[in-house]
Every structure is written in structure tokens, then in C-alpha cells.
């Protein structure tokens, strides 16, 4: 066990994650937010819904980096890393999708019509379709992986597919929704990162720590899954 003392076993960043999340939940609900029509108090969802997507993007990036590391070294450890990071990223993506669905059905729906009549308009939004495509591509990654018996073949093919899936993320969630008209905010410039004319400074004080806190929580869960798979791997060898 040469790598016992790597970052997975340290606790300082786990504590930091919990502290940041506690801050997010308290300050996120208590501090002042801009008074905007239609959004009203739901603007606070920025600290939860948007953070899910940020965390997902970071975790997918870590996953693809590990896939490339696998292809360079053929060390099965990196394949386990890549898989677990992708799985947790998918969970965050699903949570982002679900929270987005709840949020949109209250803020995008036409107030003059029953909510169910606005559904077809909302469901047709390019941002939603793009996110759905991106997630489906990653579902296919898991199906592809688990359908191959041979361990090395599985690792190699899924590492290559992981790179394609990551490349697919960009047109699906960053480029296409910006070309087409969308109800989703943040289609011009860098959403939530634009310093001049985006979210107020007050909100940024909570939003950035929230992103770090949620991402670290995702990494924590991933490391637990990685450690379990490494244990399983060892049990199979001995």
C-alpha cells in the first residue's frame, strides 16, 4: 500500500466541504438577494441547481483526465477512477436536471394558462434537450462498460468512449443551446461568471463557495466508491 496517504485519505478537504455546505445552506437562505419579478425568492436556487451542473462538469473533466491517464499507462486503477467519477457526475447531472424541471415549471410556465399547457413549450427548450442528450451519452458509457466481460478490453474501449462522450458535452450543453432561442438564462457571455452584468456581488459571495462545497462533496462520495472498488479488485486477486 504505497498510495495510502494520497488525498483520498486526508480529512481536511472533507471538513472544508461540509463547512462550505453549511455556509451555503444558512447564508443562501438568509442573505439578501436581488428582487426580480417572476424569479422572486426562487433566485436562491442558484446556490443549489446551478452548482449541480458546475459539479457535474468538474467531475466529468476529472473522469476524462483519468481515462487519458489509463490509456497512457494501462494501469487499471485509473480505469476505476474514470468510471466512478463519471457515475457520480451523472448523479449530479440528474439532480441538476430534476431541480431545473421543478424550477422551470414555476418560473417559465405561462401564468395565464394551466401549468400543464406550458409543459410542451418548456420541454422543447434547447437547453433541456441538450442536457438530456449529454446525460444519455454518458448512460451509454455505463451500458457499454458493463456489457464487456474482458477487463482490459472493457477498460480500453470505455476510456476511448469517455473521451468522445466528453467531447459531446460541449456541443450538447454549451454550444447548441446558445445558437437556438432558449428560455434558460445565461445564453450570452459566461453565465454566473460574468463579473459586470450578471449575478450581484452579494450572491457571488455565496455562489462560489457553494460550487466548491458541492464539488468537494461529490469528490468525497467518489473516493468512497473508488476505495470500495479497489478493495474488491484486491479481493479478486488474492
Amino acid at each position, binding site marked *: 500500500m504505497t498510495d*495510502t496517504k494520497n488525498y483520498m*485519505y486526508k480529512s481536511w478537504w*472533507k471538513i472544508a466541504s*461540509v463547512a462550505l*455546505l*453549511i455556509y451555503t*445552506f*444558512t447564508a443562501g*437562505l*438568509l442573505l439578501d438577494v*436581488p*428582487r*426580480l*419579478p417572476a424569479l*422572486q*425568492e426562487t433566485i436562491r436556487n442558484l446556490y443549489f441547481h446551478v452548482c449541480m451542473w458546475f459539479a457535474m462538469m468538474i467531475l466529468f473533466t476529472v473522469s476524462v483526465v483519468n481515462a487519458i491517464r489509463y490509456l497512457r499507462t494501462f494501469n487499471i486503477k485509473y480505469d476505476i477512477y474514470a468510471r466512478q467519477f463519471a457515475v457520480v457526475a451523472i448523479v449530479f447531472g440528474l439532480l441538476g436536471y430534476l431541480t431545473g424541471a421543478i424550477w422551470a415549471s414555476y418560473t417559465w410556465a405561462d401564468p395565464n394558462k394551466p401549468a400543464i399547457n406550458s409543459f410542451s413549450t418548456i420541454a422543447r427548450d434547447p437547453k433541456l434537450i441538450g442536457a438530456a442528450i449529454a446525460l444519455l451519452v454518458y448512460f451509454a458509457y455505463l451500458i457499454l462498460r458493463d456489457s464487456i466481460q474482458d477487463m482490459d478490453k472493457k477498460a480500453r474501449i470505455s476510456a476511448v468512449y469517455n473521451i468522445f462522450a466528453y467531447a459531446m458535452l460541449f456541443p450538447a450543453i454549451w454550444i447548441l443551446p446558445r445558437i437556438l432561442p432558449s428560455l434558460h438564462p445565461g445564453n450570452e457571455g459566461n453565465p454566473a461568471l460574468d463579473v459586470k452584468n450578471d449575478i450581484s456581488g452579494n450572491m457571488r459571495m455565496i455562489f462560489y463557495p457553494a460550487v466548491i462545497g458541492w464539488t468537494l462533496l461529490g469528490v*468525497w*462520495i467518489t473516493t*468512497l466508491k473508488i*476505495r*470500495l472498488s479497489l*478493495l474488491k479488485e*484486491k479481493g479478486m486477486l488474492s
Partner: protein
Amino acid sequence: MMKKIMLLFSLLIISVVSFAQEKPDSYRVEMADTMRSNGRIYVVVAVALTILIGLVLYVVRIDRKISKLEREK
């Protein structure tokens, strides 16, 4: 002449006053102000924090268990 200047001036003032009245317009956006003023928002914060801490404790427990397994190996 004097009258015209006075008229212009008063119109300017009126426009400024109307701007000043427009400003707190955003305060007409309905927010959960009552919930904040009577402190019920703290109940929501307490519930949300309890759920968060409960989940975190669960993750900590799993972390401990895996560490134990690793030591046994």
C-alpha cells in the same frame, strides 16, 4: 422669461421626483418578507441544516467503515 425658466426648473424637479418614486419599484416584487420579519425563515434553515448534517454523518460513517475494511486487508 423668468416664468419659462421657473417652469423648466419645476418640470425638471418633477421628473427627478418621479424617478425617485420609480426606484423602490423593485420593492413591489413579492418576496418572502413576512417570513423574514417574523423569523420563521430560521425554521426552514434549521430543517435544511438537519437534513444536510444527517446526510454528512451517514457519509462519514461509510468512510469509517471502508477505512476499517482497508486496515483488515
